[in-house]
């Protein structure tokens, strides 16, 4: 396959970026999208140019490190699939591909296609956990958990923290990410004691990190490589409102 790539190049956070055109010729349809970029980078290196910086690690769709806007769609054309699992056979021979970083105020560009997503870690720090210091736990089978609850918790816990939901959202809201964690922990008996405090703290932190608000566009659930449902956001809102109403302490 022969492709024309329009790739966002930006040397540093505070320098202006621009699209640079690269011809990617002789690409095998069996390559993954990132392997195609590897090939482009090999050729750039051999020509003495600086290769394109992009984040990636596990290349099996679970670490959440890869993060590309491909033709305006977070993680590209395949539904429920992270960039690293998209293969070139999903693209037309001879076509153009625009490749950009995640774009959001809360995700400043570091270089080229890499962005700083540490804001998501700070949202977790605010309350995305169950306080259970090592050593104090009782036997694992002491507390029963209905199977349906665990399955629903697992659906939400599948979040890989990639930030595609933020990139896809017109408001750059991190609601799906935050709601997924609130849902995962809030559905389990172990997560009840901190449930409302957690919702308050995480939502407040999300605002502090300059993520936008949710207006239920639903772009996030379309972009999510783990297909996490927007229903989780309803749950987050309910927990948040209740916490406000009963005056839960921060």
């Amino acid at each position, binding site marked *: 396959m022969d492709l024309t790539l329009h790739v966002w190049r930006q040397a540093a956070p505070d320098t202006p970026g621009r699209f640079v055109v690269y011809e990617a010729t002789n690409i095998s349809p*069996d390559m993954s999208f990132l392997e195609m970029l590897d090939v482009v980078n090999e050729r750039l290196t051999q020509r003495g140019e600086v290769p394109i910086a992009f984040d990636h690690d596990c290349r099996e769709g679970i670490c959440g490190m890869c993060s590309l806007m491909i033709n305006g769609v977070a993680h590209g054309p395949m539904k429920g699939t992270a960039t690293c699992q998209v293969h070139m056979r999903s693209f037309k021979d001879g076509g153009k591909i625009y490749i950009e970083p995640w774009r959001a105020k809360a995700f400043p560009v*570091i270089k080229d296609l890499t962005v700083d997503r540490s804001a*998501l*870690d700070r949202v977790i720090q605010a309350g995305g956990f169950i306080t259970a210091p*090592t050593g*104090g736990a009782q036997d694992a089978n002491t507390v029963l958990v209905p199977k349906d609850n665990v399955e629903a918790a*697992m659906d939400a816990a599948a979040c890989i923290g990639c930030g595609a939901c933020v990139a896809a959202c017109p408001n750059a809201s991190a609601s799906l990410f935050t709601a997924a964690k609130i849902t995962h922990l809030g559905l389990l008996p172990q997560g009840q004691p901190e449930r409302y405090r957690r919702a308050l703290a995480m939502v407040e932190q999300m605002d502090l990190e300059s993520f936008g608000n949710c207006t239920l566009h639903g772009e996030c659930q379309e972009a999510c490589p783990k297909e996490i449902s927007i229903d989780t956001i309803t749950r987050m809102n309910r927990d948040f409102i209740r916490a406000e109403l009963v005056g839960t302490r921060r």
Partner: protein
Amino acid sequence: MTINLNPRTPGGPLAQKWDKHRFEMKLVNPANKRKYTVIVVGSGLAGGAAAATMSELGYNVKCFCFQDSPRRAHSIAAQGGINAAKNYQNDGDSIYRLFYDTLKGGDFRSREANVYRLAEVSVNIIDQCVAQGVPFAREYGGLLANRSFGGAQVSRTFYARGQTGQQLLLGAYQALERQIARGGVKMYPRTEMLDLVVIDGKARGIVVRDLVTGAIESHVADAVVLATGGYGNVFYLSTNAQGSNATAIWRAYKRGAAFANPCFTQIHPTCIPVSGEHQSKLTLMSESLRNDGRVWVPKQKGDRRTPRDIPENERDYFLERKYPSFGNLAPRDIASRAAKEVCDEWRGVGETGLGVYLDFAGAIERLGKDVIRERYGNLFEMYERITDENPYEVPMRIYPAVHYTMGGLWVDYNLMSTIDGLHVAGEANFSDHGANRLGASALMQGLADGYFLLPNTIGDYLATVKPEKVDASHPAFKAAERQVAEMTKKLLSINGKRTVASFHRELGKILWDYCGMSRNEAGLETAIEKISELRTEFWRDVNVPGSDVELNQALEKAGRVADFFELGELMCIDALHRRESCGGHFREESQTPDGEALRDDENFAYVAAWEYAGERQSPILNKEPLVFENVKLSQRSYK
């Protein structure tokens, strides 16, 4: 320098050693803990759990990872599950049985006391994870579910769909983030350790490179933990993440930490085969597929017909033929070697001829498509996404791939290396899996080390040694910083013709060919020579673009590959000296008349701990004899 390989195994009966040891260990007064700083490199199951737990205890912790967040560590990719001797299924499991299975599965090349302790704390791990909110699979009544795994005869594996590693890691990550918010842990993401600093024989800190700015910095501590994972990426193609590397443990080795059993690598039989030169990694397909899939190749050499056109009597179900009692469920090392053998006979399938069929046609006929979909649906989808072939219609093609490394830095019972104050945890150490790891045991070991072992043993070290104050202006730190900066400068200045990846690919190929599934004396000697030549060429002709004061991924890779050359050579030296077959290490010279691995307990029942002797010098072999007081050594047979 002479190294001390005293395993410090406590006395007394096996089942009481850990208890007794915990009582004998010295404690640090709660008010004094915050005066001690502990560095943890790596944020996976072992590192993340250790950092969080030590902060909970009151220590001042600094945690480092090269990824953009501690949640990305490669533990996240583990699929199948985690073993624990809970015996919730009432099927005869016990701590002793888990201990025995792990020791035997490792082909009797690990320490009894360590393995027993691992089995012992396995039950606490499950309790801890459930308390954190890990959504393990459950029965309708609300109790935890189990499945059997990796040939074990009991159901002791706990799992969260096919994402057990992810869920366990997120549990540790959330505990870690809580400690970061509290101020007990200072996290350094996008930061890579490039050297260990040893002062007066004790590990006192590390030198790191900030991967975003390129700044070289020193960090001082009273104890250092390396939890940086395995070195499977030395093979270039493996199931490891792209960034997984050996740099931290390798540079510690060069500072005096012994490297144990480097040739013990695990090659997993069920991975998606290589499709071309461009390939950057291999994807594992869960071992559970072998419960229903039948493995075969054509009987005839070079048979290029499509699988459905090959009649039943022209197929060779080679695992069923060779191992009638275990059949397709033969252990990992055995199944991998058998697949290699038939491909070496030019009977492999697929474009490259390096693949065997894993066929579900029979199972679909017997059980129906729906049952198969329920059991393996997500794996079939993943397979189709990568290969563009539908495994419901055509047999899967699989081939073995490098998956895990049992070798690693030598540690004693306290998980301390041969350098005082340097502790090593998880896949980075060599401790518990011997020459072959059983399925669902890696997660167990990482969390055992991180949650339950290190937080105890590091306290004992600090209370006993009471390290003196040093700071980063100490000449040893300055010298290490200079050395790191010089290496970076050197890599950037060579300006040769070949890319880092091309060297890495070539190195991987040498290791795969000569130090992979089957090894022999002549091949290993060839490999050592070839690696040495390639390494010389690397330092003469590598092209690393960009500068050292920015995010430079080519530079990061170059440093890691430079270390892989040296480690690859050590692996071959170790494989050459171990003239026996055991677990994943198959020496062609040491096999039974029917071609199975033949152990030599009389001459090789020891841990080979290699000591660095200087640049381009032969490493020094030290031996820690393995003493078995509780189990009888037996030959593994799966006929």
